């Protein structure tokens, strides 16, 4: 009798709510019942609200069961799990789940489908096809394709990727590098982690394409230490790729040499800033560098370096395989392609939603997210991490487009969307923005290092009702100084969330006055 294949994700969110225990119990129960099963630990589809999400393969279709607990496993078997039997947890075919079927899966097309450490499964799903095409068409054509696709940096700054690659390619040097920023520190974001845990060979392939295109022979991945599972999956994937001749000298007989070193960060948020990350990769404190010179010209160890975010790079293979125009057909205005949005915080259906730019926050939060987890009204939404503005309910119809967001004093950044219900105290959130900056500032420039500490103090005085008007003006002035005079986005953008609270949620700064009315 053929074994029935059952998928249980080996992914941080799934495991954090019991996927390992479910997998153990499935194996135990199957053995006890004499049922032949093959347990596959796949990557996650990113529908985190359904985790642990178990799938059973029947005649090529994958039938999903959501929020499975270890305790429910015997019940599931009795209900006929192995033949797709009915059960309250049964969701039907995975392809029919609207949360997934309504997405535009370009970068994450393989994520959830396969065992992320199976090179065979990767190859069966077009893995390394884009690299082979890269070897055929040559580096200039690859850079042209990336430029024409309109792909912009997904780490936050949204700089055109093709232009960055061309700068590195055009800079003469005896050594060049590809440095991947996997220091995904923004609260509300986890797309880099999902990609690494669910499709690590995709990152390897993307780095090889980048390296070949710009003439680099060495790559570094800077992965945050808060991601231990991503670390172990990635380390194993690198070993497997190396053993199979996809890393090292003369890759698959192409004459191209490239290898990758994995570096683990050490809990510093500012190391997500590219020059601080380069310092950290050199074994030093993660203190930001003055720019110029740009890392593309003088980057890691003073050599020309492509610094890209994980998701940026992972979007490239399909651009090469399917064509730049296919990618550019997604999106709006100058925001082309898809973005892996991440729905988080107080939301009913949190997870990863890869969707073409132009979707509104309301569609994301109401259609995909189905509103708040608490069932209370949405009061504020922070987009783009701790340096992103808090938006109000009335701004939710803004299309997700880099420029449209800039116009309203906000940013899309790495695509994190954190929802708050009406119990939130926004004065506390403004205070936290300054507090976080004080905690994480690298200390190189004064506006950020000192300004953030003064910011916490001023906000405390406003909350306490001490010389409120004067302190309010002082806070605005402090925000101006930090924004104008900080070296990097840490100090330069911490004012964004603070200003948005002053502008849209000022009533939270005046509880004493309100009470006195």
């Amino acid at each position: 009798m053929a074994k029935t294949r059952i998928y249980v994700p080996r992914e941080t969110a799934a495991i954090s709510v019991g996927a390992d225990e479910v997998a153990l119990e499935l194996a135990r129960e199957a053995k006890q019942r004499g049922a032949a099963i093959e347990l596959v630990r796949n990557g996650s589809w990113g529908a985190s609200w359904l985790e642990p999400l178990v799938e059973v393969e029947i005649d090529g279709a994958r039938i999903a069961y959501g929020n499975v607990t270890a305790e429910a496993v015997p019940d599931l078997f009795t209900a006929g799990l192995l033949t797709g039997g009915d059960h309250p947890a049964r969701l039907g075919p995975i392809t029919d789940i609207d949360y997934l079927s309504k997405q535009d899966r370009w970068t994450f097309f393989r994520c959830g489908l396969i065992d992320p450490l199976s090179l065979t499964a990767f190859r069966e799903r077009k893995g390394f096809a884009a690299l082979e095409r890269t070897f055929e068409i040559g580096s200039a054509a690859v850079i042209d394709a990336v430029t024409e696709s309109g792909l912009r940096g997904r780490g936050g700054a949204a700089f055109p990727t093709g232009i960055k690659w061309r700068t590195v390619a055009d800079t003469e040097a005896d050594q060049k590098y590809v440095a991947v920023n996997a220091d995904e520190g923004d609260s509300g974001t986890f797309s880099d982690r999902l990609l690494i845990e669910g499709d690590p060979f995709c990152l390897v392939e993307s780095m090889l394409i980048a390296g070949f295109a710009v003439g680099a022979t060495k790559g570094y991945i800077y992965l945050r230490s808060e991601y231990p599972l991503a670390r172990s999956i990635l380390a194993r994937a690198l070993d497997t790729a190396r053993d199979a001749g996809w890393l090292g000298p003369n890759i698959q007989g192409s004459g191209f040499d490239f290898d990758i070193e994995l570096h683990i960060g050490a809990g510093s948020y500012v190391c997500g800033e590219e020059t601080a990350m380069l310092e950290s990769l050199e074994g030093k404190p993660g203190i930001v560098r003055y720019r110029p010179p740009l890392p593309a010209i003088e980057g890691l160890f003073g050599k020309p370096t492509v610094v890209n975010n994980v998701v940026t790079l992972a979007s490239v293979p399909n651009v090469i395989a399917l064509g730049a125009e296919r990618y550019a057909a997604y999106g709006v205005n100058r925001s082309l392609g898809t973005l892996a949005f991440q729905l988080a915080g107080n939301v009913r259906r949190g997870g990863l939603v890869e969707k073409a730019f132009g979707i509104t926050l309301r569609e994301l939060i109401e259609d995909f997210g189905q509103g708040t987890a608490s069932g209370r009204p949405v009061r504020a939404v922070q987009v783009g991490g701790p340096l992103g503005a808090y938006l109000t309910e009335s701004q939710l119809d803004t299309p997700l487009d880099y420029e449209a967001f800039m116009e309203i004093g906000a940013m899309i950044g790495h695509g994190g969307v954190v929802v708050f219900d009406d119990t939130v105290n926004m004065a506390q959130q403004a205070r936290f923005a300054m507090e976080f900056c004080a905690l994480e500032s690298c200390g190189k420039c004064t506006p950020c290092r000192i300004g953030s500490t003064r910011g916490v103090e001023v906000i405390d005085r406003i909350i306490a009702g001490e010389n409120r008007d004067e302190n309010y003006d002082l806070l605005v002035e402090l925000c101006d100084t930090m924004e104008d005079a900080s070296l990097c986005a840490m100090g330069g953008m911490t004012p964004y969330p603070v200003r948005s609270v002053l502008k849209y949620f000022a009533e939270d700064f005046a509880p004493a006055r309100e009470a006195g009315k």
Partner: protein
Amino acid sequence: MMKQAYDAKLASHLIAGFDARPEQLLQILHALQEHFGWISDAAIRQLADELNLSRAEVHGVVSYYHDFRTSAPGRHVVKICQAESCQAMGSRALTSHAEATLGLAMHASTDDLTLEPVYCLGNCACSPAVMVDGKTFGRVTAERFDAIVAAAREAN
């Protein structure tokens, strides 16, 4: 997570595993901390010697990064995410609950337990999140928190 006492020979072996390259300092510190639990003055002196760096340079890196400890942690390390997504799902109340039930303030340590903040575990769709002895947990209520800590204590 019982750690062994500092052992200069083992440390030397670990450093050699990274070819004693100074740019590997963070990676070496992680390895030392994994083995010995924290970074002692002896370790800093030895690192400076073997990587041909000044003690100030090594100390500068150890003190810059939140991950590196300069004193021994408790047997169990409990980290509670304090970032926005978890705040939106009640991490402030969860933190108060933890401090009250464990009898420990944030950043405080006993032989048994260390309680620390962490700023994002990347488990934001399952907020609030905590990490206990290196393992991430999501959708953590007060009751679930108590059970997770009890299970960790039971494990060793």
